[in-house]
C-alpha cells in the first residue's frame, strides 16, 4: 500500500488500464445489482447441500456416532480427516494476507480478501467436526476451561485436543479481526456509494466511522501491519498444533517429530490449491481477469511447487526414518501404508501430492487457468487422502495384531463431508454478494504498479490514500477500455 513501483521492467499487477473510479465501479458492481439466475442456481445448490448435510448431522447427533463406520480400533476417520483437511484449506488466506503482506508481495492484493474469507469459512467447516465427532456433542463446552460448579473438574492441559481448541479459536478470531480490519476502508466505500436506507445504515455501522483522512489511513495501516505480525505466527502454530494431535500420541505412523513442519507445508499446499480453485472460477465468472491475472495464478503455482516439494520430502523422510529407526512397528506402519489394504489411498496421495505439482514446472501448464484448475482439484484430493492415510492406516493396524481391523465409511460420513462443502459455498456465495471480494483500496495502490505511462502528476497524489473516490461518472472515461463483465448492467455475474 505504501509505495509504488513504476519500473516499466516489471509486469503490471493489474493487466489492463483502469482509472481509480472504474476499479471501484467494477469491484462494487456485484454487490449493487440484484443477483442473477446463475447466482441463484449456484446458491440453491449450495444451500441444498448444506441443508442435506445439516439433516445428516442432525440424524447422527440424534442416533449416535454408530451411524459412522468407525469401530473399536479405528476411532477417527472421516471426521478428523475432514477437520484437518478444512483447517489446511484455511491456511492460505492468512498466509496470503499476513505473511505475503509482511514480505511486501504486492501481488497478493487482488486475492487476499477472498482468500481470507475462504480461511474463515474453511475454519468454520473444520470446527464443525471436532464438535460433531464427539459421542456427546451437547457437552462440547466441557472442553472449555471455564469456571464451573463441578467440583475440581477442569480441562486437561496435557491433551493436544485442548491445544487444538485454543489454536483453532485463536486462529479464527485473529483471522476474522484481520479480515474485518482490512475490510473497513472498502466498507466505507460501499457506504458512500449506497443511497440512504438499511444498506447505508448497515455499512455505516460496519465501516466504524471511516473518514478516509490521512490520519485514519495512517492508523489503519499501523493496525493492519500489527495484525499481520500477530497473524503470522498463528499460521504456523495452528497446523503445528493440529499435527500434535498425532505427533504426541504413541501410535506408529502418528508418533513422528517431523509432523509440525510437514503439516504446515501441507496446509499451505492445499490452501493455495483451494484459493486457486476459487479464484479461477471467480475471475472468470466476475470478469476479473485483469485483476486476478495469470501472474497471480503463476505465483501461487510456484508456492505450490515449493510446498509440494516440502511435503514430498516429508513423505520420503518418514519412510526413511521408519526404516532407519529399526522400530518394527514404525516399519510395519509404513509398509502397510504403501502395500497394505489401503495402498490405493496411499498411492492416490503420492500421485496427487508428489507427482502432480511438478507439472507446474512447465510454463505452459503454469499459465493455463484450465490446467491449473484441474491440478488444484487434484492436489486437494491428494491432500484429503494424505490425512486419511495418516489417520486410518495408522490406526487400523497398530501394535497388537489381534485388534487390527478395517474401516469403511458410511453414507452418513460421506454426506457430512459433502455437507461441509455446502456450508462453505453457501458462505462464499453470500460473501460474493455482500462484500467487495477484492480489496478496493489495496488494488488501487498497485494500479500504477510497473506502468511507465502513468501520468507523472498522478504519482504524488497517492490516489489510494485519498478521500473517497468521486463517482466514476464525474471523473469521465479514460481511453474507453473494455470494462469488466460485472460493471455492465446488461451482463450478469
Amino acid at each position, binding site marked *: 500500500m505504501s509505495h509504488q513501483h513504476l519500473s516499466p521492467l516489471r509486469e503490471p499487477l493489474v493487466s489492463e488500464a483502469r482509472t481509480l473510479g472504474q476499479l471501484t465501479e467494477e469491484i462494487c458492481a456485484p454487490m449493487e445489482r440484484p443477483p442473477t439466475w446463475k447466482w441463484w442456481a449456484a446458491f440453491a445448490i449450495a444451500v441444498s447441500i448444506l441443508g442435506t448435510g445439516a439433516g445428516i448431522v442432525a440424524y447422527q447427533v440424534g*442416533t*449416535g*456416532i*454408530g451411524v459412522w*463406520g*468407525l*469401530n*473399536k*480400533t*479405528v*476411532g*477417527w476417520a472421516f471426521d478428523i480427516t475432514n477437520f484437518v483437511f478444512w483447517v489446511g484449506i484455511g491456511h492460505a488466506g492468512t498466509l496470503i494476507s499476513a505473511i505475503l503482506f509482511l514480505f511486501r508481495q504486492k501481488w497478493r492484493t487482488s486475492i487476499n480478501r477472498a482468500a481470507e474469507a475462504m480461511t474463515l469459512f474453511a475454519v468454520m467447516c473444520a470446527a464443525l467436526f*471436532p464438535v460433531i*465427532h*464427539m*459421542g*456427546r*456433542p451437547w*457437552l*462440547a463446552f*466441557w*472442553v472449555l476451561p471455564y469456571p464451573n460448579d463441578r467440583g475440581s*473438574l*477442569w*480441562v*486437561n492441559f*496435557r*491433551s*493436544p*485436543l*485442548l491445544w487444538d*481448541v485454543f489454536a483453532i479459536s485463536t486462529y479464527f478470531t485473529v483471522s476474522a479481526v484481520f479480515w474485518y480490519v482490512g475490510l473497513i476502508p472498502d466498507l466505507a466505500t460501499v457506504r458512500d456509494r449506497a443511497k440512504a436506507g438499511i444498506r447505508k445504515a448497515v455499512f455505516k455501522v460496519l465501516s466504524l466511522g471511516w473518514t478516509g483522512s490521512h490520519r485514519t489511513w495512517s492508523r489503519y495501516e499501523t493496525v493492519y501491519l500489527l495484525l499481520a505480525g500477530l497473524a503470522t505466527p498463528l499460521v504456523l502454530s495452528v497446523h503445528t498444533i493440529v499435527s500434535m*494431535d498425532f505427533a*504426541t*500420541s*504413541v*501410535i506408529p505412523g502418528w508418533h513422528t517429530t517431523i509432523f509440525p513442519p510437514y503439516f504446515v507445508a501441507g496446509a499451505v499446499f492445499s490452501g493455495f490449491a483451494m484459493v486457486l480453485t476459487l479464484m479461477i472460477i471467480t475471475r472468470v465468472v466476475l470478469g476479473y481477469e485483469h485483476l486476478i491475472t495469470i501472474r497471480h495464478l503463476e505465483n501461487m503455482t510456484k508456492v505450490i511447487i515449493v510446498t509440494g516439494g516440502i511435503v514430498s520430502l516429508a513423505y520420503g523422510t518418514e519412510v526413511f526414518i521408519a526404516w532407519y529407526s529399526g522400530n*518394527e*512397528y514404525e516399519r*510395519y506402519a509404513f509398509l502397510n501404508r504403501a502395500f497394505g489394504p489401503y495402498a490405493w489411498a496411499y498411492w492416490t496421495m503420492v500421485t496427487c501430492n508428489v507427482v502432480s505439482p511438478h507439472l507446474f514446472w512447465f510454463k505452459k501448464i503454469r499459465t493455463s487457468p484450465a490446467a491449473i484448475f484441474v491440478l488444484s482439484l487434484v492436489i486437494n484430493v491428494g491432500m484429503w487422502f494424505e490425512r486419511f492415510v495418516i489417520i486410518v492406516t495408522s*490406526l487400523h*493396524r*497398530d*501394535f*497388537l*495384531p*489381534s*485388534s*487390527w*481391523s*478395517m474401516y469403511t465409511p458410511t453414507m452418513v460420513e460421506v454426506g457430512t463431508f459433502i455437507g461441509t462443502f455446502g456450508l462453505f459455498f453457501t458462505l462464499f456465495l453470500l460473501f460474493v454478494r455482500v462484500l467487495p471480494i477484492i480489496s478496493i483500496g489495496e488494488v488501487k495502490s498497485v494500479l500504477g504498479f510497473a506502468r511507465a505511462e502513468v501520468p507523472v502528476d498522478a504519482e504524488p497524489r497517492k490516489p489510494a490514500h485519498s478521500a473517497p473516490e468521486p463517482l466514476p461518472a464525474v471523473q469521465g472515461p479514460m481511453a474507453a477500455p473494455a470494462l469488466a463483465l460485472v460493471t455492465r448492467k446488461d451482463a450478469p455475474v
Partner: protein
Amino acid sequence: MSDTLPKYWQSLAERAGDPGVLEQARNEFAEELPVGTAFAPPDASSRRDFFKMMGLSATAALVACNRAPVQKVIPYVARPDEVTPGLALWYASTCGGCSAQCGLLLKTRDGRPIKVEGNDEHPVSRGGVCAVGQASVLSLYDASRARFPALSCKRTTWAALDAGVTEGLRKASEEGRAIRVVLPWVMGPTAEAAVRRFLTAYPTARTVRYEPLGELAAIGDAYRVTHGARVVPDYRFDQAKVIVSFGADFLGTWVSPVAFTRQYVEGRDAAGKREMARHFQVEPVMTLTGAAADRRFPVAPSDLAPALGALVRKLAVKAGRTVPALALLPPPTLAESSIEEMADALWAQRGHALVVCGGDDVASQVLASTANALLGNEGTTVSLADGLALDVDALSYGELLAEVSAGAVGAVLFLGVNPAYTDPRGAELEALLKGVPLTVATNDRLDETATLARYHAPDSTALESWGDAEPRRGVLSLRQPAVAPLHETRSVVESLLTWAGAARSHYDFLRSRWEAEVFPKAGAAGQDFGAFWDDAVRRGVVTLSSATVEAPAFREDGLAKALAGVAHPSVEWELVLYPTVAVRDGAPANNAWLQEVADPITKATWGNQALIAPARAKALGLEDGAVVRVAVGGRSVSLPVLVQAGVHPSVIAVAVGYGRTKAGAVADGIGANGYPLAALVEGRVRRAVPGVAVEATGEKQPLALTQTYHRLEGRPHVREAELAAFLANPRAGNEVEGGHGGGNDKHPLSIWSGHEYKGHRWALAVDLSACTGCSACVVSCQAENNIPSVGRDEVLRGREMHWMRVDRYYQGDEANPQVVHQPLMCQHCENAPCETVCPVLATVHSTEGLNQQVYNRCVGTRYCANNCPTKVRRFNWFDYKHDDPLERMVLNPDVVVRSRGVMEKCSMCVQRVQEAKATAKREGRPLKDGDAQTACQQSCPAKAIHFGDLNDPASTVAKLSKDGRAFRLLEELNIGSSITYLTKIRNTGSGSGT
C-alpha cells in the same frame, strides 16, 4: 470540629445535664431488658443472659420452622429375612447348564440373582465356572422362556394340566400302552428318585435317555462292553503324566470341562512342579483342547478309530498281550511315527497315563477303554468306581421312535430334551407324535419339541429350583434356588411326583431323601439332621466318606463285536458336527452373552460356519464368507466358509446349536442347524458323517469375527518356551528386553515423575501357560460389569463391547499350527497414553494404580481409544438399551450402566475392590491377598488370572510380577503395564523353544 456542629438534645433533662439521664445515655440499652426476670432472679439478669435467651429463642424459632414430615414414607416392614437392600447375598448351588454340574455361588442383590460364580469348596469344579454357567443368570431372565403352563400352546392352569396329564397317563396305563419318559442322562440323584417314583406309579413306563451329542452314551456303552458296567468313569487329568486325546475336547465341551481344565493345568504346572504332563491331541477339527496340546495330529474323523486301534495294538505289543479283536481294524492313515511316538510316551508313563476319546462312536470309546486298561491307568487316571453310573434300563431314542411308529405308545413325556431340533429325525417327530394320545414337555420354553407336545409343563430354571447332583461318587452337590420362580413354572421333580400321584414339594422330597439316604452316609455322627442339612445347604456340597467300591475289571470278550463295524472309508469330504464352547448342544442358544462371546478358536460370534482347511480352501478357491451347501442324504445346510487352520483337509466342520427356530428372539434364525445332517449307523446317531457333498453357492455372507488378523507379525506380545529350556533357565523365551525400561520398574529415561502409591497398587498377573482360552472370563466380565451385547451387525462393524478379550495367535504351519491364547484387558498403564490425551480429564489415574474412566465426564472424543496401544477401550456407539423389564433385572447395581457416546473399559472390577476394602475396614483388619477378586479371576477354571496388591510383597501378584516368566506388553513404549503375563510353557519334547 465537633464544636462547629449543632448540638441536638432529646429531652429537657438531657439539656439540663441531669446526671441520671447522662448515666443512662452511656448505657448501650436505655432500659433494662426484662428477659432475665422470667427465668432467673431479677438481680441475676445480665447481658450474658440476654444472649443466652436470644440464642434459645432463635433456636426455638428455627426448630419450630422445621415442619413435621408430611410425606408418607413406607417403612420396609415386610423385609424378607436376610435381605438387606444394597448388600449382596450369596447362595451356594449347583449349575444346571450341562451334565457336569459344577458348584456355584449365586450372587443376589435385593432378591435378584445377578451373578454366577464358582464355589471354591466344590471338590470337582473347584471354583471354576464356564461361559455357559456364567450366562445361565441371563437365561433366567430370558424373555422367551415360558411363563405359564400350556395346553396346545395356549395358556392353562397347573390344575387343569395336572388333571389332563394324570388322566392321560392313567388311561395309557390302563390300556397297557407304553408310557415313555424322555430325559437326559444326568438329572441328579433326587430327580432320578422322582423318576423312579413315577416309573413305579405307572408299570408300563420306561425311561428313554436322550443326549444331543451322544457322548455320555458312547462312553457308557463302551464300558458296558469292556467292563460290563454302564458308567462314565471319573477321569483324573491331574494324575496323568501323558494325556492322549482322540477328538475329546475335554477343556472345552467334553463331559466336565471345568473340572478337567483345573486338573489339566495342575498336571502341567511346570513352574510349581518342575514337570508337566505331555498332551497329544488327535482330532479332525481344531478344538480348544487341540489348541492347548503339545503335539497335535489332524486326522479325518474316520481315521480316529483306526489310529486309536493302531495305538492300542502297539500298547498291547508292549504289554505283551495279544488282543485278536484289534486285527479287525482297518489300517490308519495317521503316520506310523506319530502313533509310535504316542505309544512310547504312554508306555513310559503307564499307570499315570490317560487316553480319552470324544464323540459318539462306541468302537472308539471301547478302544480308549482298552488302552487305559492295557496301560494300567484304571484306579489312577480313570476311576470307574468314582464314575457316573448311567441308567442301565433306558431305551434309546431310536427304540422310542420305533415304538411310537408301531403305535404302542400311549404317552411320551419330554423332560427338558429337544429332539425335534437336535435329532436328525427331528422333522419326523411331529407326524409321529400325532399317534400318541398324551404328549407332555417340560422344556423351559415352547421350543421345537415343546410346541409339538399337547401339554407344556414348563420346568423352572436351575436358579429357581431345588435339586442335587453327584458329579463324582461321594460328592453330593446341593442346588438351592436363588429366587422364587419368576413365572408360573414348576420344577420337573414336582411335576413328576404330582403325575405319579405323590405330590410333594421339591424341597420336601429332596430334604427327606437326603435325610434317609445321604445323612446316614455322611459320617456326621452326633449331629442332628437339621444342622447337617443347614450346613449342607450353606456350603452347597457334601463329601461322603464311603468305603471304596470294587471297580469292575476289563474284559476282552466283547471287543470283536464292538469293533466289527469300524470302517475307514476314503471319501472326499467328511462332515464333523461339533459343539462350541459357548452354545454347546444348542440348549442355551437364546442367550445374547453366549452368542456374542467369540469362539475361542474361530473368533466367530453369532452363528455357525463351515470350517475347512486352508489347503482345501485354496484348492477350491473358497474364501472366508463364501457360502457353501453341505448336503448328505437329501438334506442340506448352507453356511459361510470359515477357513480354519488345523482342520484336517478332508473335513468340513459345522458347529451344532445354531439355526434354532423356536428358541426365542435372540437365537432364532442365527446360523443353520447341522443336526439333520447327522448319520444313522445301526440305529445310532453319528455326528461324523463321511461322504457329504460340498458345493459353492456363489453367495457371500460376512462373518462376524472379533479378531480378523491372526498372525503376530513376529511381535513379542506372547512369549513361550519349551519345558526343557524353561527348566534350565526360568527366563527362557522371555529374553526379549524392553526398550527404555529394560523390563524393570525403573524408567531412567522417563520424563514422567511417576505415580506414588502409598496404599495399594492393584495389578493382575495372567499365566499364559495355564490359560486355555475358554472365554469364561469374558462372559463373567460381561455379567459383572453390565456390558451390553451389541448383536451380529455391530460385531461385523467391529464394535463388540467386551472389556476383556482372549486374543488367539497361531504359530507355524497353517495345516497344524501351534496356538497361543492371551486374555487381554485394560493394562492400567503406569504412564497411560489414554490419560494424557483426554481433553476433559475423563480418564485419570487412581491413587491405587487403576486407570479410571469417568463416564459422567466423558464427552466421547475417542482420542483415548486411538492412543491406546492395546485397543482395549470400548465406545458406546449407540444407546445400548437395557429396557426390557425382565432382562434388565440381571444388571449389577454396583456398576453404572453407560449411556451412549462415552468410552468404557476394564475397571479391574473396582467395585469389588472397594467392597473388599470396606469389609476389611469394617472388620478392623488389613486387606488380605485374595480378599478382592476380579470377576475374570474368580471364574477362571484354570486359575490363570491372579489379582492383588503389588505393594504387598507377599501377594501372589507381587511374586509373579518378579517371576522369570514375567513380561509386560509393549515395555519398549514405557507405558508401564500393570498386567504381568507369564510365558507359556510347552512340552513338545522338541528341544529348545522359541
